[in-house]
Structures are given as C-alpha cells and as structure tokens.
C-alpha cells in the first residue's frame, strides 16, 4: 500500500484562542496591591474588670477628635502637621524609669517630669466622635504610626549603621521572595529589639454617642 502522508493540522486559529483566554484574564483579574495601616484591636471584655489598671496621667498622650474633625492633643488644640513631632517628643521623653526600673538611656527627649516615664510605659489614647470623618481618623493614625516608625528608624541607624533603617529591614523581612533564612533570623532579632525599645501602644478608646 502506498504510504500516505498525514496532513498537517492547521494552527492558524491557535492565536485566536490564546487571545481569547488572555482577554478573559485581563478582564477578570486585578493587578492592584493593597496597602494599609495595620493595628491591633483590644480584646473584648464581657464583664468590666474588677480592678481597673491605674496608669499615671503623665504616661497617657490624649488625642481627641471631634465631629468637626478638629483635634485636641493633651487638651490643647493642634494641627495635624504638628502631631508627629508632639507624639515623638512624648514617647521619647524618658523622664523616669520603666516597669523594671531601667532608665531610658537611648531616649533623646527633654526628660521632663510632666511627660512620659519610659517608651514602654507611654500610651497614646486616641478618641474619636461618631461623626468624625474616616479620612481624618486614618490621617491621625498615620501620623501616630509614623512617629513610632521614625523613632525606630533613628535607633536602627544608630545601632546598625546607615541604610539599615527599621522600614528597610522590615520590608526585606516581610518580602516572601527573600529566602535566606540566616538573614531573616538576623533581621528578626533586630526588629524585635527595635520594637522592644519603642513598643507601639495606641489605644483606640470606644467612641461615645452624643
């Protein structure tokens, strides 16, 4: 019998099929990356605690926002642009000793007796009204967070040299593409140390209706 050659399959429509799939994926997927300010909420207490924890007035940094989006910091009106500096001065004051009795030897603040004792004791209490707009609230949260980040950055540069800021190290640590275990471990201990030096206490007080 004569050998018959198999006719070649026409692949001309392959491109059309691939284009169709491509367009489908372009339409149904998003490329956006989510960025956000991460915070931890306080635990819910069903019954009020018997003994309320007593915190010294000077260790609390009160930030109140009213329904007209005006801010009151330590009972004084303040603009948003001054908030970061005021917060940093409060945290970094180092006027007394920590709960363990250690003096804050890395603080560069004024060491005033009226402001916070130690960064580990300094608490920021943020209180908002129900009518406060979300954008202002997030802007304030942002400034408060930035104050901590800036202090941690300062200490990171002092301890680990130029370029090794807290932000940069945290970015490398969080990057899933970095697989180097030894590097991650090193960064982890550094980041933990910085977080211990300036632990972030931002308390979001329940808003009251009025």
């Amino acid at each position, binding site marked *: 019998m004569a050998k018959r050659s198999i006719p070649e399959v026409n*692949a*001309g429509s*392959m*491109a059309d*099929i*691939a*284009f169709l*799939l*491509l367009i489908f*994926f*372009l339409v*149904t*997927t*998003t*490329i956006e*990356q*989510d*960025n*956000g*300010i*991460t*915070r*931890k*909420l*306080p*635990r*819910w207490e069903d019954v009020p605690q018997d003994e309320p924890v007593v915190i010294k007035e000077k260790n609390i940094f009160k930030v109140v926002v009213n329904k007209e989006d005006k801010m009151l910091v330590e009972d004084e009106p303040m603009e948003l642009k001054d908030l970061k500096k005021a917060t940093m001065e409060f945290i970094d004051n180092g006027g007394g000793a920590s709960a363990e009795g250690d003096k804050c030897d890395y603080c560069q603040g004024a060491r005033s007796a009226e402001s916070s004792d130690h960064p580990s004791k300094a608490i920021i209490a943020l209180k*908002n*009204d*129900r*009518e*406060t*707009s*979300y*954008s202002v*609230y*997030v*802007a304030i*949260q*942002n*400034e408060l*967070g*930035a104050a901590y*980040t800036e202090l941690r950055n300062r200490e990171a540069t002092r301890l680990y040299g130029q370029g090794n800021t807290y932000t940069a190290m*945290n970015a490398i640590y*969080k990057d*899933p593409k970095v697989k180097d275990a030894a590097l991650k471990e090193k960064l982890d201990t550094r980041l933990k140390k910085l977080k211990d030096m300036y632990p972030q206490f931002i308390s*979001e007080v*329940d*808003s009251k*209706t009025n």
Partner: protein
Amino acid sequence: MAKFKKKKDGELPQASTAALPDIVFMLLFFFMTVTVMKDNSLMVENKLPEADDIEKLNRKNDRVMYIYAGKPVAGYEKFGEEAVLQLNDKIAQPSELKQFIHAERALRTEEIIPFMVTALKVDRNANMGLVSDVKQELRKENMLKISYLSVKKPEAK
C-alpha cells in the same frame, strides 16, 4: 544543472505568524501569575484615604478578609445616602458581621484562623460611627488584627 524557481516579480513573501500563539501564550501566563481574581463587584463608593506609614498586605495568601464600606453607588440608591457596609456581594448591617465572620472562618483551615487579618476598605468620606460599630463586632468575635487600607500619599517634599 539546478533549476531555480523564478520569483514572481515584486511580490513580498508572507510574514510567518507561527510564533504569534507563543507570544500570546507568554502574555497570558504573565497575566495569570501577576494578577488575582476579582471576587467582588463594588456596590459602594470606595475612595480610600491617604496615608504613608503603610505596610503591604499580601492578597495571595488566604489570611485576608475584606470588609467594604461607603456610600451606595448609582443604582443602589435604595440603601440610602449614608455610608453602608458591603460584605461579599450584599449590602449589610453591622449586626450581620457576626455571621459573615463565621462564614469566612469556615472557609479557612484551622491553622490560618489565628493569623487572619481584617482589611477595612472604607471610603474616605464615611464617618467613624460605622467603623466603630465594625470594630466593636470584630472585637467581640476576637478578630483583632485589622488594617485600614489606604492609598499612598503623593510625596509632598
């Protein structure tokens, strides 16, 4: 003697399109790997607030739970003028959050649940009352890690 086929004068040879499918497939795979499926269509306005002290949230891992809030968009005016919550594909009341959280937890494995993060996608014009209600419910359900999603502030300096 070898015989040469005489070219028809002036005619260009046709460009080969054989590599076209390969190129398109390459594009296709690129988009398949770098993008994520859209899971919700928005019924509320969602212009996020601006901030710069922000962290990236990895959507590809299964830990993130989304809560949307904002003013209802055109076509959903029946839900009123005030900011409302959107959970999955429904406009909801803060009281329905409990059910939603339980449903979201049921979708995930036991190991992931303690690491779940709630991403609040709230419109910048919403007011804090609604957000406070949401936070209250989250606290009751022990979902303590939250992230106020925002867009990067354009550099002022």
